[in-house]
């Protein structure tokens, strides 16, 4: 008996041995504690790691969205050939100068004052200084209830106010110390002189600050007054008649304090003043408005970088004869009528006399006119101009050849040519085989505005900054941009605008939009769903309700569908290219039906693309519809069959209505999948540049994602920015679809549950 002696033969010793074995199997208390602590540390460590990884995945999602938003907004330096605002202002100036009874149009305010003073029906625009000199013979109209007085001008409530500026350049100031001295002297004495003359000086602190800044850059002592006797050489000043009396008076004092050189002052108007300055024949410009980008560009051509100081403010006075008893206050609309459309006073305000308005105006070059037009017609765009005016603007600003080419494409007017002769019109448009340009409806205003935007305004974004840096480094960027692109307009731009949604594709990214692409996407997706939905649901019903799963063939169909779901989408593109574009070309190009045209005859049409996408989403629809049908309890089928309904009646009246929520969710998910699908459409479509809206299933097409792809393949940065904006459009579209799918799922899930 081996087991009996064992307990006796192993007294304390074996017991200890057993204790050791026990100790080896079960560690000491400290050991257990240490082990537990270690395991807990490991567990905590991994917990943190898992949390970090998950957070990282979510952070990447947010980064993706933020980086796209970051690129779709921001500062841009935009260069235009002719700014839109200038085209509009020029139009209204010509309206004002082309109105009836313009008795005088002159650069000299004094002549305007004299003219109005001598004419009881006279009205005109002039600077305040000259108006003040002729106080007795004239009276100023108040605008919107505000009369031009020292107070209203200083507080900015009087609308027709402009800055009075002196322009020079750093180069001139360092080359000719006498010019710098005169400019500084002007700043130091402007307040005194202008107040004496009854003009409106700029704020005293602003003048002092500008003087100090100028003195510092010139290396002079800001506190010390200028001693004219210390300077010699000539000074040539040119420009606005409004600032002229002030400059004259300051020059008189400058000479009076011992200046030996000659000072030549001419009153030629602000525009002519800048012309002289940029042509290097004037040192200083009296300006009654800021320099324009076009003028800056002209100066830049001569390596002159304009630099300005503001010396005063000038209200433009709408003056009438002092004998005029009826007119005292006008609003913006009445002002517009007074200077453009109205012939008689009675047309402006009922009750005013039916006498002709006699107009005394400054010329188109004067700052007074600029202020008037910018105030009264400010904020209007090309779209506010009449069609005829737009045609004239287009014709005046493009070459004759371009104008003719555009007109040959599509006419401006139904019955005549603008850019070509009467004979050409007769020969082309009244022949039997009139080209499409003569058959199409004449252009509409929207397309004409777009044409002017592209050909005349021609905006080019020289550089763009992303949203984050635009917000945090705004000042630096502004300075940088002025340095790098002196003639460009630096402003904040949203790339995603309503215009962006409604404009067609264009070769200029600044003017391009996604309308064509959105329409293309909708067409393609609609065809894809219309074909894919019935086929997919039909297949799902067959597989779930009819197919005998024991049969090999039916199991093969099921496996096959699972495999198709994993085929890369570009392979479907190759399938579509071969089958729909090449083999079925007569059908997909519309040739069989006698529709479609030569440009789409190669079969790369919306129909081909839609059918390709239908095949692509078939597995997705089938699998989700199968799931939905499986979820319908078989008791429903049995009940229906038990009542004698046929199989189809059971499916149609009981299975499908109960599964429809799940089926619809699947369809919408499929839709959101093909809205973003790109690769097969690039293969099937191959369209590089489509600007016309699709008109039907046989049109050539572009879609939102293919458009994004093409824009990202362009080297210019601006195309990347509009691609970002287009991505936001695409994501919003997707988001709406997904939200709709979730809504449907919840709604139907509740009903069945």
């Amino acid at each position, binding site marked *: 008996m081996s087991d009996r002696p064992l307990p006796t033969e192993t007294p304390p010793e074996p017991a200890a041995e057993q204790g050791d074995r026990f100790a080896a199997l079960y560690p000491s208390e400290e050991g257990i504690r240490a082990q537990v602590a270690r*395991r807990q540390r*490991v*567990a905590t460590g*991994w*917990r943190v790691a*898992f949390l970090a*990884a*998950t957070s*990282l*995945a*979510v952070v*990447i*999602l947010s980064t*993706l969205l933020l*980086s*796209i938003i970051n*690129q779709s907004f921001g500062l841009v330096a935009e260069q235009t050939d002719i700014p839109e605002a200038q085209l509009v202002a020029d139009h209204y100036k010509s309206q004002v100068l082309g109105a009836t009874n313009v008795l005088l149009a002159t650069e000299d305010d004094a002549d305007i004052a004299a003219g109005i003073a001598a004419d009881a029906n006279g009205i005109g625009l002039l600077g305040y200084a000259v108006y003040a000199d002729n106080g007795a013979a004239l009276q100023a109209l108040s605008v919107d209830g505000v009369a031009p007085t020292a107070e209203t001008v200083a507080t900015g409530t009087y609308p027709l106010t402009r800055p009075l500026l002196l322009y020079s350049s750093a180069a001139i100031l360092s080359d000719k110390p006498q010019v710098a001295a005169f400019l500084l002297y002007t700043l130091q004495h402007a307040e005194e002189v202008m107040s004496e003359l009854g003009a409106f000086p700029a704020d005293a602190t602003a003048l002092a600050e500008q003087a100090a800044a100028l003195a510092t850059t010139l290396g002079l002592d800001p506190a010390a007054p200028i001693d004219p006797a210390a300077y010699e050489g000539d000074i040539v000043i040119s420009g606005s008649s409004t600032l002229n009396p002030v400059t004259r008076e300051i020059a008189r004092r400058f000479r009076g304090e011992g200046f030996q050189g000659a000072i030549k002052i001419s009153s030629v108007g602000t525009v002519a003043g800048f012309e002289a300055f940029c042509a290097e024949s004037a040192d200083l410009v009296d300006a009654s408005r800021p320099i324009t980008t076009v003028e800056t560009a002209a100066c830049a051509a001569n390596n002159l970088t304009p630099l300005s100081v503001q010396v005063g403010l000038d209200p433009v006075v709408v003056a009438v004869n002092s004998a005029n008893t009826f007119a005292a206050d006008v609003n913006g609309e009445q002002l517009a009528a007074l200077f453009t459309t109205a012939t008689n006073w009675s047309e402006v305000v009922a009750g005013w006399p039916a006498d002709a308005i006699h107009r005394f105006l400054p010329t188109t070059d004067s700052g007074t006119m600029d202020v008037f037009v910018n105030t009264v017609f400010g904020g209007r765009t090309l779209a506010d101009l009449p069609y005829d005016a737009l045609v004239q603007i287009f014709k005046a600003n493009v070459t004759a050849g371009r104008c003719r080419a555009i007109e040959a494409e599509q006419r401006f007017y139904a019955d005549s040519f603008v850019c070509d002769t009467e004979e050409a019109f007769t020969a082309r448009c009244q022949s039997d085989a009139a080209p499409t340009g003569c058959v199409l409806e004449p252009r509409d205003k929207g397309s004409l505005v777009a044409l002017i935007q592209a050909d005349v305004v021609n905006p080019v974004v020289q550089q763009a900054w992303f949203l984050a840096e635009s917000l945090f480094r705004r000042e630096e960027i502004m300075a940088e941009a002025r340095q790098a692109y002196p003639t460009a307009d630096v402003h904040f731009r949203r790339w995603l605008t309503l215009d962006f949604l409604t404009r067609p594709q264009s070769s200029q990214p600044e003017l391009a939009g996604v309308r064509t692409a959105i329409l293309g996407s909708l067409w393609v997706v609609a065809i894809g769903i219309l074909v894919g939905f*019935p*086929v*997919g649901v*039909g*297949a799902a019903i067959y*597989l779930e309700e*009819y197919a005998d799963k024991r049969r090999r063939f039916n199991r093969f*169909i099921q496996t*096959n*569908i699972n*495999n*198709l779901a*994993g*085929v*890369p*989408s*570009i*392979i479907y593109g*190759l*399938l579509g290219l071969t089958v729909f574009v090449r083999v079925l070309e007569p059908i997909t190009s519309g040739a069989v039906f006698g529709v479609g045209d030569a440009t789409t005859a190669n079969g790369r049409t919306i129909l081909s693309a839609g059918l390709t996408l239908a*095949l692509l989403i078939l597995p997705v629809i089938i699998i989700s519809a199968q799931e939905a049908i499986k979820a319908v309890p078989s008791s429903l089928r049995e009940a229906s069959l038990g009542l*004698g309904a046929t*199989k*189809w009646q059971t499916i149609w009246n009981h299975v499908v209505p109960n599964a429809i929520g799940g089926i619809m969710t699947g369809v919408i998910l499929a839709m*959101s*999948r093909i809205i*973003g699908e*790109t*690769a097969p459409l*690039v*293969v099937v479509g*191959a369209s*590089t540049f489509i600007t016309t809206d699709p008109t039907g299933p046989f049109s050539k097409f572009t879609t939102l*994602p293919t458009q*994004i*792809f093409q824009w*990202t393949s362009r080297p210019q940065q601006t195309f*990347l920015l509009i*691609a*970002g904006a287009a*991505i936001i459009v*695409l994501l919003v579209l997707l988001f709406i679809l*997904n939200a709709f799918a979730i809504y449907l799922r919840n709604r139907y899930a509740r009903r069945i549950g």
Partner: protein
Amino acid sequence: MENLTVLPPRGEAGSSRAGTVNAPDVPDLSRRHRIGERTIESGLFIAAAVSILTTIGIVAILLEEALRFFADERVTVVNFLTDTTWQPQANHFGILPLLNATLMITAIALLVAIPLGLASAVFLSEYASPRVRGLLKPALEMLAGVPTVVYGYFALTFVTAILRAVLGKDIVQIYNVASAGLVVGVLITPLIASLSEDALHAVPNSLREAAYGVGATRFETAVKVVLPAALSGVAAALVVAISRAFGETMVVAIAAGAGPKLTWNPFESAETMTGYMVRISGGDLSYESLDYKSIYAIGLVVFAVTLLLNIISQRIVARFREVYE
């Protein structure tokens, strides 16, 4: 209970006909030949057969055009498989540079996606409270629903910019394999996370409770009990993700660059198979040109590899699935 016994069969209405069930003037409806029913069934069968036709179509056109490609005297199969350059003008048709770029991108993508995706799946299934899970899982699924062209844009404008800022513009080219690979990784992360999470979530709680009962920590339970139990689902998810990365097109077409190049440097540009297909088919091509035929030969390779991976994934699920009651 009498009216129960006199109910007419097959839904015929009215008690007036009660008791006339076996009268000879009532036709036997179950024998009626229903043409409509048969037609509908045939129609539905055709709908189901469309998927078969699609597969046949894909295989047939890929094979046919690929054969036309190899039938060209300038191309040989050996050349196609072994030549290390792809220069159609110079009669070099080696798929290696394209294949190499595809594999590099797939590898980089997996390096990113496997740790991220698996960790997210474990976290969502084993650690997260139901509320956190309910928030994060749809967020990940939304990430999976973002169109790939958007990921391509993200790679080009964001990831490449960061790589260039960090590593230097001399080292990282504007178009490079690394940024495309990283972003493809981001793209397949939600796929791995979502599918693996489904598999982990399906493991019955009794296993977890048993593990806790013998004193395992949560981490030990997750990694040593739940993960092995769900291994087939997780492996299938990984294989599907590889297939997805292999066939991914838009990200690489946008960010990896144009021009096949055999390189091991991930910061250089190199065109992948799918990128090549997009570039060539994006232009207007003559259907007889060798370039046109070549995209089918390459398409055949892509199709074969992804199909193989998908079949492997389905086999894994079918064979190694643990069934718990």
